[in-house]
């Protein structure tokens, strides 16, 4: 703790804080143009200079930590003169096209020019000729660019794409794609978010609205389980109300491209459905089970659970069922009922082990947290999977390739690597009884690889173990969960699980879902899922239901946080509560009346929807919603031994989606539109006897898919990536994502 003074008043700095940090925390204004809280100080704008008594010259506050007792002054005639001059230089040759610029009204250059009273240009130089770059969803106008470098820093230090860089050339400096002619990235659009001027903009949003015409609706992204805070920006025109864009509090939060560009998924054109409504009520009454997806709110899940409790109708949701079983098995050995890790902890880790996920596309936010851990803490990252991911190379320090299907063996080997058994004979005997030789041989995870992980662990201050979807969809998921739970109980390693859908965790905690086989349902009612009669957001559904940006409610995120959804767009038709009023006699007027009734036995808290905040404050504190209470687990049992590992031979595909795509919802969004193709390495193409661009048929035990094959030179190995985002609920493969496949040409 360092004590010093700002403008004569005493302040304190924590270790690692700069003068600017402290000033902002304590409410002293220092102007900046390039500064970004979530990256290393960029230090390009020089506006943040301050005076320090007794020190000659002006000090850059963004990168300078205070020393004890210094007296900092944030404003003086000389500081102001220099800041004015910097703004004059920024304004040199800046095109006066504010009238048509997307950024106008929320432009930091405009704001600062006004603040410093720069009314005219006293210098000019010859402007180099530069043209607008069109990079798909993103556009770049170099003549508007002030080369603050925020975009390149965020792309490298937070996202991990490292897809853009500055082509340094004095006043002709521009942003260019790195090592590529055109922008080749995951199109998260974070560069647009952080751009202080109109240089980097959304191609879709261009010229559509002025900043001041838009109304901002804070909500939570629904594309994956990360629970990202976002703001839908809406405007009412002759065509009605619609969402124009999505923004995020870029200083502290980050969105992926699906969240940013994939907002157009509201259920539209819903008119006079009363006849259909009656049909739906009748169908639900007749059915003995409800099948539903995990893209629903906690409150809807509770409605369905109450339906089950009142009527005995079975609840079917394969995704949530698998996750629920996984959590239950984890609790058998773990210290707490739920995993303890969070995204923030991942970002703070200096060792990360990821098992069973193609994380960059499964959950971009987990990837960003890993990127931040790598860039901020030089985290050693062990990426354990059967397929390498070139996107992750710049942050992964060790790729451990295990044989398809051997996740349980990998987890047991990790437990053996991490757990110190010297003071617990029973534990030692149990772990020693694992057939390490067999597990190692079958999984192909070697001693040297585990030794590296152990060596890193010795030095690591914070280790996080991330369990992807392959862990909980696996036939041996119970073993994986139990061994992971044992690691959580006997070491200081934090475990984070990655639920698949926006509310997989919520449904797993709220609903008594059962598996399809044991349910033996005769007549199934589908809610956002297939069934004998089905309602939902898809055009194929009989009765149109509101999408998640048309509802109030909460979801339970990967961070075990209960987060709110708000209504960005109205829904003209019926909602689930309407149906249930008729079927199970629910008396609620609004779905959010169920928010305080969420099961406290699962960790939910009795708090009303309207009492939940949706704010990330000026200091970056996430005050959204609330955290689930994570009760201590009591069994503290030993995991069952891993004895037999499955073998996968022949042609194998892995169900994994391309960037920006997660499911049928993203598939239906025009801005994200992409072709669903099978992507494989040259080695795969040779083995499967197919070539780049060929039309093929893929047959697995779960289905038949007609695809085009695309050869990807950056892929290695013999497993191809097969997308599922475009498949409807009934065609969607369930369970473990690796599948034996027969591939033939069409």
């Amino acid at each position, binding site marked *: 703790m360092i004590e010093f003074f700002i403008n004569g008043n005493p302040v304190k700095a924590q270790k*690692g804080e700069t003068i600017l940090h402290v000033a902002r925390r304590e409410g002293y204004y220092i102007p900046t143009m390039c500064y970004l809280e979530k990256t290393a100080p960029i230090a390009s704008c*020089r506006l943040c200079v301050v005076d*320090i008594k007794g020190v000659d010259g002006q*000090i850059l506050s963004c990168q300078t930590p205070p020393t004890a007792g210094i007296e900092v002054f944030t404003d003086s005639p000389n500081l102001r003169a*220099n800041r004015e001059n910097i703004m004059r230089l920024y304004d040199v040759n800046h095109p006066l096209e504010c009238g048509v610029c997307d950024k106008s009204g929320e432009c930091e250059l405009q704001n600062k020019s006004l603040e410093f009273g720069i009314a005219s240009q006293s210098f000019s130089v010859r402007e180099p000729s530069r043209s607008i770059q069109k990079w798909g969803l993103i556009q770049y106008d170099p003549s508007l660019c002030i080369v603050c470098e925020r975009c390149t820093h965020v792309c490298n230090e937070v996202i991990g794409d490292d897809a853009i860089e500055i082509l340094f050339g*004095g*006043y002709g400096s521009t942003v260019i794609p790195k090592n590529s002619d055109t922008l080749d990235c995951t199109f998260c659009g974070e560069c647009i978010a952080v751009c202080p001027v109109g240089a980097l903009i959304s191609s879709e949003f261009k010229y559509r609205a002025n900043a001041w015409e838009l109304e901002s609706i804070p909500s939570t992204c629904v594309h994956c389980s990360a629970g990202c805070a976002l703001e839908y920006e809406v405007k009412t025109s002759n065509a009605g109300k619609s969402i124009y864009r999505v923004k995020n509090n870029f200083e502290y939060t980050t969105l992926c491209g699906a969240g940013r560009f994939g907002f157009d998924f509201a259920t539209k054109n819903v008119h006079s459905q009363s006849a259909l409504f009656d049909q739906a009520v009748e169908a639900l009454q007749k059915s003995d089970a409800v099948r539903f997806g995990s893209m629903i709110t906690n409150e809807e899940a509770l409605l369905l659970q109450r339906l089950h409790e009142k009527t005995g109708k079975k609840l079917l949701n394969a995704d949530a069922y698998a996750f629920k079983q996984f959590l239950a098995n984890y609790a058998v050995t773990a210290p707490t009922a739920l995993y303890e890790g969070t995204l923030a902890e991942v970002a703070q880790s200096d060792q990360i082990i990821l098992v069973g996920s193609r994380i960059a596309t499964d959950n971009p936010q987990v990837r960003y947290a890993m990127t931040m851990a790598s860039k901020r803490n030089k985290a050693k990252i062990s990426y354990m999977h059967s397929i390498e991911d070139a996107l992750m190379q710049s942050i*992964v320090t060790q790729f451990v390739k295990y044989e398809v299907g051997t996740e349980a063996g990998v987890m047991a080997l990790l437990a053996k690597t991490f757990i110190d058994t010297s003071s617990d004979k029973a534990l030692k005997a149990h772990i020693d009884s694992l057939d390490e030789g067999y597990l190692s041989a079958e999984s192909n995870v070697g001693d040297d690889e585990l030794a590296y992980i152990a060596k890193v662990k010795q030095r690591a201050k914070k280790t996080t173990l991330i369990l992807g979807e392959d862990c909980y969809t696996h036939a041996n998921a119970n073993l994986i969960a139990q061994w992971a739970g044992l690691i959580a109980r006997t070491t200081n390693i934090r475990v984070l699980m990655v639920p698949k859908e926006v509310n997989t965790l919520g449904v797993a905690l709220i609903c008594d879902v059962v598996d399809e086989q044991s349910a033996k349902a005769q007549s199934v009612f589908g809610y956002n899922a297939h069934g004998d009669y089905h309602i939902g957001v898809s055009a194929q559904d009989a009765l149109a239901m509101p999408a998640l940006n048309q509802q109030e409610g909460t979801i339970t995120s990967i961070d075990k946080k209960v987060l709110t959804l708000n209504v960005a767009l109205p829904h003209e038709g019926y909602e689930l509560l309407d149906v249930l009023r008729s079927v199970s006699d629910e008396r609620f007027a609004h779905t959010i009346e169920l928010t305080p009734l969420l099961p406290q036995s699962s960790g939910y808290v009795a708090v009303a929807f309207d009492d939940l905040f949706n704010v990330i404050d000026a200091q970056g504190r996430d005050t959204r919603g609330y955290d689930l209470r994570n009760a201590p687990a009591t069994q503290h049992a030993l995991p069952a031994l891993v004895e037999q590992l499955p073998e996968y031979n022949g042609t194998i595909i892995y169900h994994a989606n391309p960037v920006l795509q997660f499911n049928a919802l993203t598939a239906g969004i025009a801005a994200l539109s992409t072709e669903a193709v099978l992507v494989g390495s040259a080695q795969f193409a040779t083995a499967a006897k197919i070539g780049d661009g060929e039309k093929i048929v893929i047959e697995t035990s779960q289905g038949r898919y007609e695809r085009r094959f695309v050869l990807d030179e950056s892929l290695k190995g013999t497993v191809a990536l097969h997308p599922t985002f475009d498949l409807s609920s009934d065609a969607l493969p369930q369970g473990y994502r690796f599948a034996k496949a027969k591939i033939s040409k069409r």
Partner: protein
Amino acid sequence: MSRIYFSTWRNEFIDNRGKSVEEQTASSFKLPETYEGNRDSKAFIGWDGVALFDADVDVVRLATEYAAQYQLYSEACGRCAPGRWGGRILYDMLDKIARGQGTLADMEHIKEVSKTMMETSKCEIGKTVPVPILDLMQHFQADFLSCIEGQKASKHYDASIDYIAKVTAPCMDACPAHVDIPAYIEGVRDVRFDDSLMATRQTMPLAHTCGRVCPHPCETECRRANIDEPIAIMELKRLGADYETDHGFGFFHPVAQKPKIGKRVAVIGGGPAGLTTAYYLALEGIDVDVYEELPVLGGEVAVGVPQYRMPIEKYNQDIEAVKDLGVNFIVNTKVTADMMRAFEKEYDAIMVATGTRISKQVRCDNEREAIQGYWGAIDFLDKINLYEKYGYTLDEATRKKHNIDNEFVDLRGKTVACVGGGFTSMDVVRCSIRAGAKRVIMLYRRDEATIIKNTTYEEYHEAVEEGVEFIFHSAVAKINDENDVMKSLTIDRYELVPDPNGGRPNLEKVEGGSFDVEVDYLIPAVSQSADLALLPKEWEIEMTSWGTIKTNGKDFMTSRKGIFASGDCEYGPMTIVNAVGQAKRASSVMARYVQNGGEVTLTDSEIMEDHLRKMRVYDKKEKITGWLPGLPRQKSEILGVDERKDNNREVNFGFTQEQALDEANRCMRCYYIAMVAV
């Protein structure tokens, strides 16, 4: 006779305008009055002032050209708003005046923009470029005003004058390899480790190595020391190299390798100088064969520097980067004079980089190779490192000669004395501790402060912690043996006697202070000499008085055309970075030599580099502004003494990311532009 006409350089104000020869004052600085050979300079202009050597200099154009050089530099930079636009405006307005179209308002604008640049630019270059320009505007105001008032071009506006500029920095100047240190530190600061590594590799291929075991002369001339402590320059180099290695990237070369040009060079010796020569020649598209006597590559860094200081797997990464360019390595091959004769015909040029691998004697009584226990430091370290790093076991003859009962150098139960005081002797004693010796003694003629100065504070203290006994002011007088087996040493003690005339104190023997100490081994590590038997006698290659190959220290060609020399065999036993610096320069000369028909040339950049080094860029008396003093230098964590003294684990963990960024943020980016008008 000084030719100075006018100077503001480093606050030494000299104005010889209109003065008689007797009245003229001379400069105390080594200014580049002569550019090269018989080419005189007209003026020198730089970050701290301007010096004119000639009354006829067109000062308006000089200022304009200096601003133009900054503009050129900022064409490659553009990292801050004041520099990006300020530099352009400065140049545009000066040129407007120089070509006869300026106004008095332009003079005021120049001063205003200069002020903002000087106070808020990101690096020193932006802060200092206005300095000499404002000096000229002040002291030669009439010249500027006459251009403005007469609306006429300055007097030599269209004359053909060479303006030769060089960007430097105190640390770059001090580094024998002239590594672009601010750039690689900026890469760390920007969390762009690939950029950092590529900046290092422009002139320094051994980034892992010189990120670990460099004595870092740059840190002695770091400007940050003027306000608190120097930047930990060396350690920050590791980050880029570790990034490349940790993520399994290929190799980030500083530039794309040129296509083959059909020229061949032989490099004799696979140590730092040889590897560096090979690397930069290969980048130029030249085929390189490297001949190495030992079975392993890397020279003394591989077989001399111990594993705990320089892990071989890291050094091998540096070597792999050279291999990646297609350099051909031939190991286990000691080059002979006959081979050299053949090479001279076969290759377009030859680099001799064979180091100094003969341990010099301590010069005491009864000092004989035949005594068992007398073991030269180079051979001793060879044997240890070949086993520890590569698994080569001792052969029967070595075991017998040195009385070793194991297949590796096992010193359990033995007492080892080393005579030295430099890095090699530190390696000997610390390796002896790790080899299990029961007692390890370092005998040194001078005192503790000197041994720290000659090595590093860390090295000395780590050795003390590990249990090495240092006996200062001592020297071996005699080896005592029984039947050619070493039993003890007779040690003389010395004391420093002040010189009554105020000179350097003398070491004088303390009469009656001698004593005996029982030892099993005496390892002389006083110095090394070069084995140059490979040079054919008839070539009559010129040598220095201390037995190394003579060159002019600028182009590194020996007295025989086409035969170059660099590293310790040229300079005498010195540092890795010195060898790299020499070899980098030599490879640049050689690349031109093989292509332009055997002409030895230096580039303007290289000539300026030498001028600047002579002048010294660093000024330890300079008062620094614009930086908050008192920010401590970061220290990386090291292994505890009990964790390290019995094994070869790397002692230094390197910086954490947070430490690295904090340290990088202390760097003041002291780039400067120096320019000579010829």
